[in-house]
């Protein structure tokens, strides 16, 4: 079988709920990052623990980006000090379920590491939830794969 997702996945992980406010979700990000590596994406599960989405740093960036930045971004004569803080204040009251990515690519614990790499390259994803019979077992991070390969390559 060789090296598979089972060998590199993190089995201790935080999850979010769809109705969690963004203000609470980022606190979970901060907590997870203090305990583990820097966490830039997190799985979202429903009440029964079923995976329903992923919330990434990119999703939060999209939320913060003003809709018409291509217009006022040209107005260099306009003073916009404090706009980022205003965007953050607005974002806090949104819910995870409103901005999460729902089309999540998943793997199984037996997915070969080279296949994991292939998916990450082709699909431009940095993290892959690991499911077995619909049950969430862990998550594989790009950095986890790379660190594992470093040991083999050295």
């Amino acid at each position, binding site marked *: 079988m060789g090296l598979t997702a089972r060998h590199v996945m993190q089995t201790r992980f935080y999850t979010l709920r769809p109705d969690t406010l963004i203000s609470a979700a980022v606190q979970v990000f901060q907590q997870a990052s203090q305990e583990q590596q820097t966490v830039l994406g997190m799985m979202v599960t429903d009440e029964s623990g079923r995976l329903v989405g992923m919330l990434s740093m990119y999703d939060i960036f999209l*939320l913060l980006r003003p809709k018409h930045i*291509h217009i006022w971004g*040209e107005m260099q004569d306009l003073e916009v000090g404090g706009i980022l803080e205003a965007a953050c204040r607005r974002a806090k009251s949104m819910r995870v379920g409103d901005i999460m990515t729902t089309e999540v690519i998943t793997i199984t614990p037996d997915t070969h590491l080279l296949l994991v790499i292939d998916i990450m390259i082709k699909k431009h994803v940095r993290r892959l939830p690991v499911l077995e019979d619909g049950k969430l077992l862990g998550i594989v991070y790009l950095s986890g794969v790379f660190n594992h390969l470093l040991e083999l390559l050295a």
Partner: protein
Amino acid sequence: MPIIDYKNVLKGLEVREAMRRQVIHLAEAASLAQAISYTIKYKVNAILIINDRQEGLGVVSKTDLMGAYYAGLPLSTPGGAVMGGPPLFCQADDSLDSALDAMRAHQVHRLYVRGDAPRRALGVLAYPDIVGLLYRYCFKCERSRRSSSGSHEPMPDRFQIREVMSPTIYAHQESDSLQTVIEGLAAYRFGAVLITTADGLPLGVVSKTDLIMAYKHGMAAEATARTIMSSPVQAVDGSAPLVSALKTMIFGDVHRLFVYQKAPQTLVGVLSLSDVARFRSGTCRACLVSRIKI
């Protein structure tokens, strides 16, 4: 009316200079729920529907989603069932003028930019993208009001909000059903409607985004406008400088403000971000592109 080229500040500019390269798309079988999520998440007004060869088949707009809500379609309905189409394409090396003409002729707000393969979109050009570019070039144009003053210092904001606003306000009463609001928005092609009391006092605003969010959250279309309106109404004093409205829009991430005269309860017009951008750009009114209407 003849087009006088030397009065066109966008002359010589191509679509590639204004287009966005991120095309928000979904497969034909993707549900309306997914289409709504994408419009909210990516803050776009329309989603390109593609087939498995990545070819554009049609477009699902907020108006289409609103129509699906009105018709009572289940959220699991494929987007392909309500899309309009086929999508209109232009090429990256087309002139912006010709792209604008195509938008006007077809009464659309966006064109997809064709890649090497027919019907495959490598970008999208929307009206607001052109307005942004217009601001940049008008700012530097030698015929602009800025340059004519001989100074490159920021131009004092000579315009008042009431000079730029549109005096037409479309309103519904708080007790009107969402179905009635949808009918009004569809008939008048507005993006949002003012909600008032029975006595005509402004209470809130219902936008297309509010309606499709209500759809996604399972709210009955028979519910009243009051249940989903955003309140209070974001309004500005018509006698205030234009720049103050612009800042309110930018900081609130909204592209529309209501305008009042004397008292906030006395609304007299609506101001859009694109109107502000065009007036504030320094555009001389003789220039063809200064007449872009969004």
